[in-house]
């Protein structure tokens, strides 16, 4: 990220809105960050999206910080709540943060839904979690919590623990009340349309318990016969309070929680988290750990894609592939288990390195796997991708254009299927990805088949990366010597007192105050952890920008005009995980 470009955008903004309309703030991750008053914000966003050279076309994330108990932010404008817009420019390969300071107990901002379609759900989340209203939003209702919820969970005065709250019980009246509240009332979703020509639409409820929804997800389809006129996803059934949890766990003990965000690919969530903490703490990770992390992450990318492959085929009516791909996944797990001692949620990454050195004999396991998988993939290609029915059911189905994808915040394989080569591993190499040889598969059609094709090829590319890790695994330590690396290396604790104290302290490291966001290429798309430290043993605010959240938001767009059976195919092709949506 070039400083020149940053100052450049500051000049652009200043010349358009006048000196003093935007105030820059230095951050630890060197993402250009500007404060702008609430009155200006829509114009500023609009200008950044369309008016500058190398426009910021994607609203990458939108969130808030409850600043009321934060101590170390003297260099920032005072506020009770800060709303943070995170924009992304593909042309510049650069991010930009716009912050808006809000005061008072019931703050509000103007809605950005007119600028980006994807702002819709983010603003609902803002309302739900922080009680920050988006004025002019078409349907501002809770998104993650039940409609009957009281309070806004991410406010500092909201209880975090369930055990601090009333014990959950479910007497009959309450059950009936909650069930009735789930009834779909079009009016509540902002649909007032009454067709003049006598057409009546039917609303079909699907989920939250439905085998085709890949987890607890509900969607209401508005149907004209078999045809989907519109769709209304209802999420939040899987909300596990992961962001609030970050404010309570220490920096170190939060790692296992990140595993469980996209639970099919734990280490791909550990990755941005530990990288962000390391950025805040200024830790350099030794070579061996960097390569080992890459290898582990790619293994999980394959494991995750294998689950997707099988279930996608199953959604289309093929029952065999899922048994085959789960078997292959078990083989990947035998390596993962040998390395980390765990199958699904290894929590093997550590701040400053990894938990343990690779075990003796790991090379053979990895070698066997990279020899084993390619012929299997060939077989599945014949079984699934070449199958005439699969093609007929996915080609031209659920098509997204590149512009739509960007407008809706789509990333990862789903974006690459629209014809853009956008992969953080290449564009913003982290952990040494720039030294690996691999290709970024893309496809042009943007339909369900294209999305599937991209993922299939990605598995092969991941195998290439793993092979290079195998051939070039550096020797040396697997954990940094930095005093904040957690837990410190055993040898060090024997030599110096400071580290011994650190290992004995239950709190773990105290990370210097500041803010940093690091994004990585996870299995489903771009995953970013935005961490705010107030110089404590745990984070002040942990924001997890997950790829599946915007992907699901774009689902109605993809299935309009198609039939119910296509809808199942489309859902299968997006590859989402509810943990990654609701967190």
């Amino acid at each position, binding site marked *: 990220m070039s400083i020149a470009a940053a100052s450049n955008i500051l000049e652009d903004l200043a010349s358009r809105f006048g000196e003093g309309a935007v105030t820059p703030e230095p951050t630890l991750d060197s993402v250009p960050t500007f404060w702008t008053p609430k009155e200006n914000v829509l114009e500023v966003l609009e200008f950044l999206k369309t008016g500058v050279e190398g426009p910021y076309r994607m609203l990458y994330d939108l969130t808030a910080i409850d600043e009321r108990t934060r101590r170390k932010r003297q260099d920032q404008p005072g506020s009770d709540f800060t709303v943070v817009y995170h924009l992304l420019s593909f042309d510049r390969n650069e991010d930009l943060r716009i912050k808006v300071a809000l005061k008072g107990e019931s703050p509000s901002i103007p809605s950005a839904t007119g600028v980006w379609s994807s702002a819709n759900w983010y603003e609902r989340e803002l309302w739900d979690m922080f009680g920050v209203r988006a004025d002019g939003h078409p349907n501002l209702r809770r998104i*993650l*919590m*039940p409609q009957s919820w009281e309070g806004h*969970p991410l406010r500092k005065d*909201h*209880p*975090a*623990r*369930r*055990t601090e*709250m009333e*014990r*959950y*019980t*479910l007497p009959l009246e*309450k*059950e009936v009340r909650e*069930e009735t509240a*789930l009834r779909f009332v079009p009016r509540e979703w902002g649909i007032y349309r009454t067709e003049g020509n006598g057409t009546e639409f039917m609303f079909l409820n699907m989920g*939250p*318990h*439905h*085998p085709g929804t890949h*987890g*607890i997800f509900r969607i209401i389809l508005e149907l004209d016969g078999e045809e989907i006129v519109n769709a209304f996803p209802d999420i*939040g*059934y*899987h*909300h*596990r*309070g992961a962001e*609030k*949890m970050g404010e309570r766990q220490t920096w170190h003990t939060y790692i*296992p*929680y990140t595993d*469980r965000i996209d*639970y*099919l690919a734990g280490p791909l969530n550990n990755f941005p988290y530990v990288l962000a903490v390391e950025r805040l703490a200024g830790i350099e990770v030794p070579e061996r750990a960097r390569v080992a992390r890459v290898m582990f992450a790619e293994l999980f990318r394959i494991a995750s894609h294998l*689950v997707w492959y099988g279930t996608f085929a199953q959604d289309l009516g093929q029952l065999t592939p899922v*048994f*085959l791909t*789960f*078997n292959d*996944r*078990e083989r990947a797990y035998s390596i993962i288990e*040998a*390395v980390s*001692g765990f*199958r*699904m*949620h290894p929590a093997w990454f550590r701040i400053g390195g990894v938990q*343990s050195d690779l*075990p*003796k*004999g*790991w090379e*053979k*396991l990895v070698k066997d796997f990279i020899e084993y998988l390619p012929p299997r993939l060939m077989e599945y290609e014949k079984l699934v991708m070449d199958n005439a029915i699969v093609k007929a059911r996915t080609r031209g189905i659920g098509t997204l254009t590149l512009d739509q994808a960007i407008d809706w915040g789509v990333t990862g394989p789903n974006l690459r299927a629209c014809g853009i080569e956008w992969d953080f591993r290449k564009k913003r190499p982290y952990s040494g990805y720039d030294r690996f040889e691999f290709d970024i598969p893309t496809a042009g059609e943007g339909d369900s088949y294209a999305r599937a094709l991209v993922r299939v090829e990605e598995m092969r590319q991941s195998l290439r990366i793993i092979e290079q890790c195998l051939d070039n695994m550096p020797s040396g330590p697997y954990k940094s010597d930095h005093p904040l690396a957690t837990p410190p290396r055993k040898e060090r604790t024997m030599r110096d007192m400071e580290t011994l104290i650190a290992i004995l302290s239950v709190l773990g490291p105290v990370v210097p105050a500041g803010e940093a966001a690091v994004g990585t290429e996870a299995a489903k798309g771009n995953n970013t952890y935005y961490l705010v430290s107030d110089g404590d043993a745990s984070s002040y605010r942990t924001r997890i920008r997950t790829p599946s959240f915007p992907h699901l938001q774009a689902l109605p767009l993809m299935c309009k005009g198609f039939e119910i059976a296509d809808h199942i195919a489309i859902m299968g092709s997006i590859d989402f995980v*509810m*943990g990654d949506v609701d967190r």
Partner: protein
Amino acid sequence: MRLNTNETDRPAGGEAPPRNFLITKLEDMVAWGRKNSLWPLNFGLSCCYIEMAASITSRHDIARFGSEVLRSSPREADLMIVAGTVFVKVAPMVKRVYEQMMAPKWVISMGSCANSGGMYDIYSVVQGVDSILPVDVYVPGCPPRPEALTEGLILLQKRIAAERKPLTWITGEAEARGKELPVMREQKGWRKEATTLREPDEA
């Protein structure tokens, strides 16, 4: 167990009892049948469900224990495996699905989240599915390995084999429970006494 009531198989003379005859009480036979054909509800809440799926697919193959007929409709299933976190928002639905299952029915709580809330003592998570429904077997782990789920299933099967539920709710309480299951921690106490642990340094 094979029943043969075919007249023509009777030896001539009609005196000696037929060799392929099995005498049992009807309720014993029903218990045996129930034990070996548990149909789980295809019902996943969270990460644990992926391990449940792993138990069903090739390597772990739950079909070996007669429990592979996954049903997506609660009315056709008699075993609910609560695989994952019970969220406040989803709890009424879990209860509803449970109520839609026909008796006799059983519940396995799979994983720490369903057992007790696990590592999620957080505002949006119910601290254990037993706050809203009766649980027969708790399987620990986060997530439990497929082997652990299989063990849980076998424990449940043992219990069902020993349990005598009335054949229909007309003749008695359908939810009648068998005797309490043993606490496995006590039975597996020997594990705590292990002194040599496998070296993690070798694959």
